[in-house]
């Protein structure tokens, strides 16, 4: 019986370490303490200013807290709201773009089947990423761009037939984001700055 007991102990130990490993996957359990003062940039201010109707002084509008139209009772930074608005539209443009929507099979299938969590989640992580790139606030907690854009490391990206995207796909993707921004009449000078920022991650996504 002694060996049985050791075996059982061993199994329990293995399970517990498994639990610890799974538990360590979590990213959401601690609320992020925002750095004071909250980082911002002229582009972030411009976006926040624009989403509020583009009146008056630009400075300070990026981090200004305003009511969140999509989350009753909550507030949101105006700059983030501008970015999220464009991101949400960009995903619609992508869904109608046959060159790019093939890379989103899982997401689009989930949404079509009425399971909207992944879609809501992507709108958030994508917004986090762009908000961080634009404002300098360290809020993105998702995967690295390299890991997220390869079927081998993330099975929600692409398929066995299309495991990675090429340069043409990348440029088209940026084009879809631009179309989304233009649909809200974001000035071209602002879109150009966004385009430059987004293009900087090309090396991590096209390889």
């Amino acid at each position: 019986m002694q060996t049985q007991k050791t075996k059982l102990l061993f199994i329990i130990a293995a399970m517990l370490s498994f639990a610890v490993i799974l538990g360590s996957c979590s990213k959401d359990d601690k609320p992020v303490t925002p750095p004071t003062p909250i980082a911002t940039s002229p582009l972030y201010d411009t976006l926040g200013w624009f989403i509020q109707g583009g009146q008056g002084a630009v400075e300070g509008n990026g981090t200004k807290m305003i009511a969140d139209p999509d989350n009753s009772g909550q507030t949101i930074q105006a700059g983030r709201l501008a970015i999220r608005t464009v991101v949400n539209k960009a995903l619609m443009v992508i869904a109608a773009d046959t060159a790019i929507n093939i890379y989103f099979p899982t997401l689009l299938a989930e949404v079509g089947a009425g399971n909207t969590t992944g879609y809501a989640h992507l709108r958030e992580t994508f917004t986090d990423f762009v908000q961080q790139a634009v404002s300098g606030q360290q809020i993105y907690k998702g995967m690295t761009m390299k890991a997220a854009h390869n079927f081998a490391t993330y099975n929600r990206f692409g398929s066995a037939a299309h495991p990675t995207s090429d340069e043409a796909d990348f440029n088209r993707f940026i084009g879809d984001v631009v179309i989304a921004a233009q649909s809200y009449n974001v000035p071209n000078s602002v879109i150009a700055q966004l385009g430059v920022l987004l293009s900087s991650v090309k090396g991590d996504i096209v390889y």
Partner: protein
Amino acid sequence: MTMKKKLKVAAGSLLGIMFLFSAVLLIHIVVMVKNRKPLPAATLQMARADFKQPVPDQVMQTIQQAVSRQKGVKETYYNAGSRMLVYTYDNKVNTAEAIYASAIRPSGMSSERHLVSQSEATKGCPAMDNHSFYGKLTNMVARVVN
């Protein structure tokens, strides 16, 4: 060891493993959902209609306006190249079918509502599907710990 004793050990191990797996699952879910903030527009859904012939701008404008007037519709987008009309709506308020039936089909333009196949529909993550067993369990745990 007698046969009976062996059986007892086997049954005990099986039960123990099942218990441990369940505990691991529960702990995992608790860790994942603890302090999770509600996602903005969590019930926003996207749907697509595919047109079978080019649609004149004027007509498409009318269709998009009709779609936008439907209950719960948030935004529309049309890609003239792929002839796909995409619309987002709150799935607590309306359904893709109803919106299609009352705002797109009557346009007289030949079109089809895009549907995901059964095999595509099962590709998603079970934990994220509110109708699946895991989705329900996840929501239940979220209500308890938050």
